[in-house]
């Protein structure tokens, strides 16, 4: 009975929007955007020119204008132009409609690998493990996926596509399980091992895809793999418009988020993962096999990161170029932190980052703001989320008295 009640409570806590808990992340995002705006204004030469020519108010006006153009472009690049969308709906023009929502589909496309990678890190966090290796797991999964994708020929899609996805999961899980095993058996800290394995994966992929390498395209002078068979493609969402790269991988990502939520909160394994994360010593006393749980957590985490690579290849690229990803590992950490290691939170954080990334590309084209502004925003957001006191002091928020339920990762490099 009581257990049932506990469960009920927990469910409500997940579903109910807790504004007080949301205040810090929202204010963190807001503050980061304000800082970003300041950076944009301060690094714009026309602003300085306006200050020189038309005085203080002219300069301020120009600065506001520059920020408006930049963030306007960011918005349109992420969600599409509302005016175009409205016209398309009014005229009932299907073609114009797909065109108008193109930016948003791009946002969702960029969001897809973010969700997987963010979930990977979040699951690790819940288990007290810091998986900085999403990048390497992504690479190895990419290799495995693309190999199954191009080497199997004449297989129906209903078998080929799942096989290719499974190969990606297996590749990522394998790459994640190694540091998990080392942590469980020798106590070697997973942070340094996952970083090392990122570089090993990078070199390995370089070797496999190098011109003349084992997985290189035979007739190419670029380091790329062969094209995968169409039977392994993840279906496009708008097959009629080939420019839209949005595909079913996004829904796979949502399913993965649901899976992680179910795994963490509804299964014994999930309970064990969370217990080990909160207190490995208590977990050991409770009869949980800590080494087994650590290895499993890292393997599942790696498998999730692997799906990021698999869906990128099966849904978007259809081949694997050398060095085809960069920064997923670190972005994923930001996502897990912003999402408070909660699957729903990770999905929302991924949507935000996806919108930022997709919008920044348009902003670069229109307002000539370098893409890297998003990295600055992400870095600032992590700082604010990790040190909520800064935000609380800044906005005079009530400080929470009881400590946040957090997981401690840093217990030295070589100990349990």
């Amino acid at each position, binding site marked *: 009975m009581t257990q049932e009640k506990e469960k009920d409570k927990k469910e409500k806590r997940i579903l109910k929007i807790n504004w007080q808990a949301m205040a810090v992340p929202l204010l963190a995002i807001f503050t980061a955007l304000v800082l970003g705006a300041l950076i944009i204004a301060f690094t714009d030469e026309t602003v300085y020119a306006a200050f020189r020519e038309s005085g203080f108010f002219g300069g301020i006006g120009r600065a506001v204008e520059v920020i408006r153009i930049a963030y306007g472009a960011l918005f349109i690049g992420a969600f599409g132009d509302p005016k175009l969308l409205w016209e398309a709906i009014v005229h009932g023009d299907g073609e114009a409609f797909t065109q108008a929502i193109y930016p948003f589909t791009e946002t969702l496309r960029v969001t897809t690998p973010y969700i997987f990678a963010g979930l990977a890190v979040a699951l690790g966090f819940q288990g007290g493990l810091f998986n900085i290796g999403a990048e390497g797991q992504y690479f190895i999964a990419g290799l495995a996926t693309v190999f199954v994708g191009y080497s199997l020929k004449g297989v129906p899609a209903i078998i080929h596509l799942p096989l290719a996805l499974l190969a990606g999961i297996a590749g990522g899980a394998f790459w994640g399980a190694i540091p998990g095993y080392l942590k469980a*058996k020798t106590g070697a800290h997973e942070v340094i091992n996952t970083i090392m394995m990122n570089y090993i994966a990078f070199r390995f992929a370089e070797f496999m895809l190098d011109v003349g390498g084992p997985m290189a395209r035979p007739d190419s002078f670029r380091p790329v793999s062969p094209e995968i068979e169409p039977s392994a493609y993840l279906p496009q969402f708008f097959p009629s418009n080939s420019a839209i790269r949005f595909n079913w991988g996004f829904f796979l990502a949502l399913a993965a988020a649901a899976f992680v939520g179910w795994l963490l909160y509804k299964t014994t394994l999930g309970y064990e993962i969370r217990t080990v994360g909160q207190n490995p010593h208590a977990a050991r006393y409770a009869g949980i096999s800590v080494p087994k749980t650590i290895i499993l957590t890292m393997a599942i985490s790696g498998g999730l990161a692997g799906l990021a690579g698999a869906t990128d290849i099966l849904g978007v690229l259809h081949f694997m170029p050398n060095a085809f990803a960069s920064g997923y590992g670190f972005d994923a950490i930001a996502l897990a932190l912003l999402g408070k290691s909660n699957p729903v939170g990770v999905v929302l954080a991924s949507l935000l980052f996806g919108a930022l990334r997709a919008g920044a590309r348009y902003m670069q084209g229109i307002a000539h703001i370098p893409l890297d*502004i998003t990295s600055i925003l992400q870095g600032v957001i*992590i700082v604010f989320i990790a040190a909520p*006191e800064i935000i609380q002091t800044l906005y005079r928020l009530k400080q929470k008295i009881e400590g946040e339920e957090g997981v401690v*990762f840093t217990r030295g490099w*070589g100990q349990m």
Partner: protein
Amino acid sequence: MHEEISIRKARALGIAFIIFGFAVLALFLPGTAADQTTTFTFNLSSSEAIEIPPLTVGTRMALYFTALLSVALGMWQLAKGFKRVYLVLTFVSLLFVLAFLAWAAKGKSMNLTGMLQSTLLRAIPITLAGLSGVLCERSAVINIGIEGMMLAGAFVSALVGSVTQSYWWGLLAALLAGGLFGALLAVLAIRYKVDQIIAGTAINILATGLTSYFSSRYLQVHQELNHPPTFQPISIPLLGNIPILGPIFFNHTLLVYVTLILVVLIHIILFYTRWGLRTRAVGEHPRAADTLGINVFKVRYVNVIAGGIVAGLGGAYLVLSSVARFDELMTAGKGFIGLAAMIFGKWTPFGAFGASMIFGFADSLQTKLAILSVPIPSQFLLMAPYLVTMIVLAGVVGQANPPAADGQPYEKE
């Protein structure tokens, strides 16, 4: 100061030596003809006081010799056991590398001095990153933001160096930038007790974003802003004329000498001064240190900021002593390799330097092999440092013991 090792491990090492010996024969002998020779040369420039004649050896002879020696050492280890077995392990690894070089350069000549010189140059930024890590972690603050701090140092040194047309100002700015990011890490880790790995990650992302943003906003638009003057090599009189050692150690830019001095200096500070004792006490047992009246927070602040400055120097080296320009993400993981060097070197300055030399050697070897057109993919050599680090961390070779309080925030009672 030799460590006690278990009988099982001692036996495993003996067997490993023998396997190394046979591996030399199995890997390198088949492709080597009986009459092939390898020539090692030792003169790099004409500045050496004495010309050392080149050494030509029969390749097969060299292989037999090294293989026999490591098998013999392995037998001895199994029968009697060495007291300082890790020293012997180092020696056997060296033998293996020599056999490999003899094989790789068969029928050709290889300049060993040149290779060691480029090893040192490649090891310098890794050493600085490692030293930064040693400073921070000895006071129990984990710094995985070294990469970002180096990047910031590199960017600022290029920009300020170009604007002022002076490498001195560039250097100073880099130290300042590194120190500022060090201070940010310190505030997050000490004042706000943020998980140190998260704080370091935030610094990496922030530094990557800031340097790339400002680089594409300014340096790429105004090329003259990315054209700093560089430190020129200074040959040290007399020392620079010693054969072999002269070109390797005493014919470099100022920043190389500074790095080598820093290795010694930080060793002395850590192990022979009051400050070093306090640092180590704070790293091992902050509560006890506090009881004795040591200001734990102050020790950590100073060490982490100093660590940031050293990392900034590493960034400045990449620009002002090497390529003379900033490129986005130019540190290319050197900060993380430095962290690995620190672990490999067991949290000591000399250890970190030695590990950096090994990593630098792997790096310089792969460029050399490309020139000699050896049929080994360079990627595997480049993987070696990471693999070695994982093996060391797993405790297969020696034991990696970090400072006891590493990574834990300190709370005053």
